[in-house]
């Protein structure tokens, strides 16, 4: 069922050394430009937005001042995801190889691997891998490690680049999209760590090999984190693999009532949709995406509204508080959801929640508030019967048990942005 490509060799107790890496995958071919191969491979980004990697490279190639920096985004601020961590702790050199191949393609001089500073072990693994690599050929990019603060929005690409520029992990307002991010005056390519690992394989084995598995529109494999009804686990599967097969592989035994897909800014889907393939084409009819490869399975004995309230409360705390509708709107959504779950004054709460969601949508500098709105709307749809029950004044039967792993919200004075 699972198909290990970027996770070849997993699980392993220590990350693959450079020598083991070369023995496993062979040397990275010294092709200077892999744009064509990337375009025909159909590889899309694995950080959540699923933008075609080849197109992104092409877009940056046409920049006047050239591209100097290649940023590997391994911030993984999404609490429901552990895939980038697992990948870097398994095949760190594969991720670096992909970044080097992209840097060569764009003639960039520097690769910057970003790992959150609250994961020192992971940072040490990356640093060791960087130090271990053979003295670079003259043309190769320099590779360095950076450790920005580990906030949820810190991994948003404009926030990440903002930090690399000015040491502030705040998302930037970009009126036109796709926006070209810059460090200093140089255009910068930001790619997710897993995306880089797939690039490294395409550079070696080619686009045709890459397309042998997965679906026509979404070829290749994806690393998925499954959590909720079972201990968080990671597996790599071809796109299009039924969700039910993915969760079984990760140790979810009973049929869940619902799934949270894509992440905390993703959507809930009904448990009856478990037969659907895990790829964006199969999920589009139910308005879901694969996002950063996340499946949270919600068991029958949990309350979807309550879980959503917990997630939204945390997401509200993770707002950078730059934009009013996000800073004030998200806590208001969390208040409404908590009231709704408790069954107190639930009827007025429900209509207020719906109108607040519409008011907030699309009014932030980044997509953080939009993700929360999407999550709330899907919860009201998928857990409609619970909503009605709560709205009639019945509190949740499962008020005590919670399932989704939500980190502890830091107090405001402890928030670290710099």
């Amino acid at each position, binding site marked *: 069922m699972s198909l290990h490509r970027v996770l070849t060799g997993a699980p392993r107790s220590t990350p693959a050394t450079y020598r083991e890496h070369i023995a496993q995958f062979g040397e990275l071919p010294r092709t200077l430009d892999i744009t064509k191969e990337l375009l025909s491979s159909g590889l899309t980004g694995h950080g959540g937005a699923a933008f075609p990697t080849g197109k992104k490279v092409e877009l940056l190639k046409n920049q006047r001042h050239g591209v100097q920096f290649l940023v590997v985004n391994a911030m993984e601020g999404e609490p429901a995801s552990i895939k980038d961590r697992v990948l870097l702790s398994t095949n760190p050199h594969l991720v670096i190889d992909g970044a080097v191949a992209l840097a060569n393609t764009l003639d960039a001089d520097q690769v910057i691997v970003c790992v959150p500073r609250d994961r020192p072990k992971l940072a040490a693994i990356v640093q060791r891998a960087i130090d271990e690599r053979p003295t670079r050929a003259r043309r190769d990019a320099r590779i360095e490690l950076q450790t920005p603060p580990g906030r949820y929005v810190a991994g948003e690409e404009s926030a990440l680049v903002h930090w690399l520029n000015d040491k502030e992990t705040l998302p*930037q307002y970009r009126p036109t999209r796709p926006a070209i991010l810059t460090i200093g005056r140089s255009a910068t390519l930001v790619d997710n760590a897993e995306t880089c690992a797939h690039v490294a394989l395409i550079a070696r084995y080619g686009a045709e090999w890459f397309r042998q598995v997965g679906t026509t529109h979404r070829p290749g494999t994806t690393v998925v984190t499954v959590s909720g009804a079972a201990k968080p686990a990671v597996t790599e599967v071809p796109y299009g693999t039924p969700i039910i097969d993915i969760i079984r592989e990760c140790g979810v035994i009973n049929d869940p009532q619902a799934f949270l897909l894509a992440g905390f800014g993703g959507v809930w889907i009904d448990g009856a949709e478990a037969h659907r393939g895990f790829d964006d084409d199969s999920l589009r009819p139910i308005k879901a995406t694969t996002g950063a490869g996340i499946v949270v399975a919600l068991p029958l004995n949990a309350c979807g509204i309550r879980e959503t309230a917990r997630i939204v409360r945390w997401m509200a705390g993770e707002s950078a508080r730059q934009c*009013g509708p996000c800073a004030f709107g998200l806590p*208001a959504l969390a208040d409404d959801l908590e009231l709704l779950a408790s069954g107190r004054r639930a009827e007025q709460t429900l209509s207020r929640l719906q109108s607040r969601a519409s008011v907030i949508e699309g009014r932030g500098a980044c997509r953080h508030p939009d993700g929360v709105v999407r999550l709330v709307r899907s919860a009201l749809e998928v857990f409609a019967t619970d909503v009605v029950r709560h709205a009639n004044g019945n509190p949740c039967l499962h008020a005590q048990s919670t399932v989704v792993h939500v980190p502890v919200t830091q107090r405001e004075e402890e928030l670290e942005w710099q």
Partner: protein
Amino acid sequence: MAMRKRGASFRLVVDPVRCDGYGHCHELAPELVTLDEWGYPIITANASPGNDRELMRSAQLAVRGCPRMALVIERISPQ
């Protein structure tokens, strides 16, 4: 084509990072801006100076009146 003959379309745009919710834009251009329950602006209509000079004047007032310089008038590129 018809659009172009009447002149380009414009709209009022808020930079949400700059905006601190002073609400002056709503005072100056109530026909273009309403406020949400937290006092932050919601742009309600497009200002097309080709057909409406009054709207454009309001939009300009709102832009000049914003203490945070968070508003701009943006040309809508014809699709």
